[in-house]
């Protein structure tokens, strides 16, 4: 018989390393034609940090996303960005890139102020145009203003670095503020349990994630869907089996990750509760996406058939064993 159940899993996740300094740096070079070169240490391993960091810089400088060339993760060229881990690059390298852009922008704003004869905070840069607040029609091109800087021998470059405001943990009590900001999530899953074979199928995953600000919503969804799928693998399929120190599952034939056919309908939901210290409010999402999935699935299995599986993965063997015990 097949029985359905619904389960919930929640999580919180501190962004960045735990109670330890973990700074990242960035360089911005705003060029004569108003295009930008951004140099960051952050390694893009597929999650898309290069894209997100370019968006942050483009936003700050009032240029297009395509105007930003990103050179990343090259110790000969870029400052240290720290590890691509702890869901930290959007938040930490993002802040570094933001600060570097702000520093370069200062030079341009200074020049614009003189050109327009107004106070600096009156000047706005948007869509590669520089104008005084409320007088958008009276704009100068960014190239013109940067050209003005050049004529005075001013470089429009900036550097930035960011280290989250944290404290170390007390050795005895663990007391402290180990992270500056936290991501939160709730996932609700629906499963179907075959009570005769013990097989668990996940039918739908609803994943609501507070990411602070979604710099790139499509990429955020991609993280949520990919992370939940890895969480599904953790819940049901994956296990490095080790006997006397030897891995018995040393290949993709024996170590099984989810295939396209194992993935349920996904409902990624983005919640934006901004982090005061994040770039445009952003937190992080890479790891949070995976964290609650296996918990939600375990709770859904209980909801479906009334058994508590307390050892991962939730294999058909364990489900059948428990069902038999319950009878």
């Amino acid at each position, binding site marked *: 018989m097949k029985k359905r159940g619904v389960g*919930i899993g*929640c999580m919180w996740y501190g962004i960045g390393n735990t109670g330890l300094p973990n700074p990242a740096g960035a360089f911005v070079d705003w060029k004569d034609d108003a295009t930008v070169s951004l140099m960051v240490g952050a390694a893009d*391993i597929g999650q898309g940090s290069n894209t997100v960091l370019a968006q942050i810089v483009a936003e700050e400088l009032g240029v297009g996303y395509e105007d930003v060339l990103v050179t990343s993760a090259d110790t000969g060229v870029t400052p240290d960005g720290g590890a691509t881990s702890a869901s930290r690059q959007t938040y930490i390298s993002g802040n570094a890139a933001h600060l570097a852009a702000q520093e370069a922008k200062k030079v341009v704003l200074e020049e614009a102020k003189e050109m327009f004869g107004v106070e600096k905070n009156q000047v706005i840069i948007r869509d590669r145009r520089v104008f005084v607040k409320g007088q958008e029609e009276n704009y100068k091109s960014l190239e013109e203003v940067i050209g003005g800087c050049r004529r005075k021998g001013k470089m429009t470059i900036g550097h930035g670095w960011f280290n989250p405001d944290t404290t170390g*943990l007390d*050795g005895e009590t663990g007391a402290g503020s180990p992270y500056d900001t936290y991501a939160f999530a709730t996932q609700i899953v629906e499963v179907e349990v075959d009570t005769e074979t013990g097989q668990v199928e996940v039918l739908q995953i609803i994943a609501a994630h507070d990411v602070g600000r979604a710099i790139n919503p499509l990429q955020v969804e991609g993280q949520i869907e990919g992370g939940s799928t890895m969480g599904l693998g953790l819940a049901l399929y994956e296990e490095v089996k080790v006997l006397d120190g030897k891995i018995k599952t040393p290949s993709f034939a024996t170590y099984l990750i989810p295939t396209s056919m194992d993935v349920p309908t996904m409902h990624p939901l983005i919640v934006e509760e901004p982090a005061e210290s994040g770039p445009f409010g952003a937190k992080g999402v890479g790891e949070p996406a995976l964290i609650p999935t*296996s918990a939600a699935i375990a709770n859904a299995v*209980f909801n479906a058939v009334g058994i508590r599986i307390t050892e991962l993965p939730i294999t058909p063997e364990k489900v059948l064993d428990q069902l038999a015990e319950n009878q």
Partner: protein
Amino acid sequence: MQELNVVGKSVRRKDALDKVLGKSQYSGDIKLPGMLHVKVLRSPVAHALLKNIDCRAAESLPGVHAVLTAKDIPESNTHGIIIKDEPVLVMDKIRKIGDPLVVVAAETEEIALRALSLIEVEFEELPAVFDPEEAMKPEAPKVHDGGNIQSIRKIRKGDIEAAFAHADIVVETSYRTQMQEHAYIEPEAGVAYLDGDVVVLRVSTQNPHFDCKEVARNLALPLNKVRIVQAPTGGGFGGKLDISVQIYIALLAIRAKRPVRLVYTREESMLASTKRHPYVIKYKTAADKNGKLMAIDVIVIGDTGAYASYGPGTLTRSAVHATGPYEVPNVRVDAYTVYTNNPTAGACRGFGVPQLAFAHEQQMDMVAQRAGISPIQVRLLNALRPNSQTGTGQVLETGVGFVETIEVAQAKALEVLGRIC
């Protein structure tokens, strides 16, 4: 929130064009003139004293350019993100199956493999320990000299004993979680070459600046003589934070004075890379009759395997996150990082939090059941909100969107599942 022009828009990824065209040059795709191929000889035993390695036959094989053992490492011969407890090549003690012993650079992969088969190794096997709870006992075989309990992270808040004494609901469960492989589709790989007196690496990595420091330290080079460039990286998930091919290829490029490349096979990747820590979690929750949390008392044992890698960081994060996203006035957590002769566990997407979530979320459901409220109610009742205090005493003034995630998920569940939890 402020309306923005570029932020908040789903712009095209910077790297997507090259990736869909198959033009991205991952490390294993890079071919340099005169490039040699590298293979690593690894230990088939889990715990042993290394007595002797005889490489003479391998060295004299035509096409072999360099055969290096621990003796050829100029300095340090250690690496590790938190503790430098892992040898680049084993000098005296093998601690796990797959520990690296010899690296070879040869004209082809086939010759390099054949050279490995000519190497004679003498070792003396030692009693090994594979169970973390066994490893914590004083009589267990010692993986490292300092003992098998690598570290303990403690969290203490409030008065646990009093809370449990007054609790209406106590839920106590033991949980176990498995060892997980990162399973990025691109196995570890890298190339190294000399640019004047600088050794340049293009590698699949999550942390080039760390790699640079580790290579420089082991090769006794200043940091400005080592340049690490991250190649397009086919996934990492934490598994490419540790050193893999980096030090070997840097060493061999310098020794052989030729570009070198090392691409792990899938099996070697599985054997040599870190894994998600398997956990034993003993979790005890106290709540009042309404389901309001009063205390948690948690013991976490993480099997970090033969080397620390990110183990202490992972267990620390577990300890901090053990409460879940809930307000818990009284907290006791002891999180142990334990050495065994198992494969090394390190950073893995979620860093010790998925394991704890598996536990605390089932605890919450059990508390709800006992209190006669729904799983959602118990969470809303205990949720961290603005100005809540965490288990480490941190007050979260802003940026706490937890309740909204519950509400949004609940609404969606009603819509697509027709019910909630």
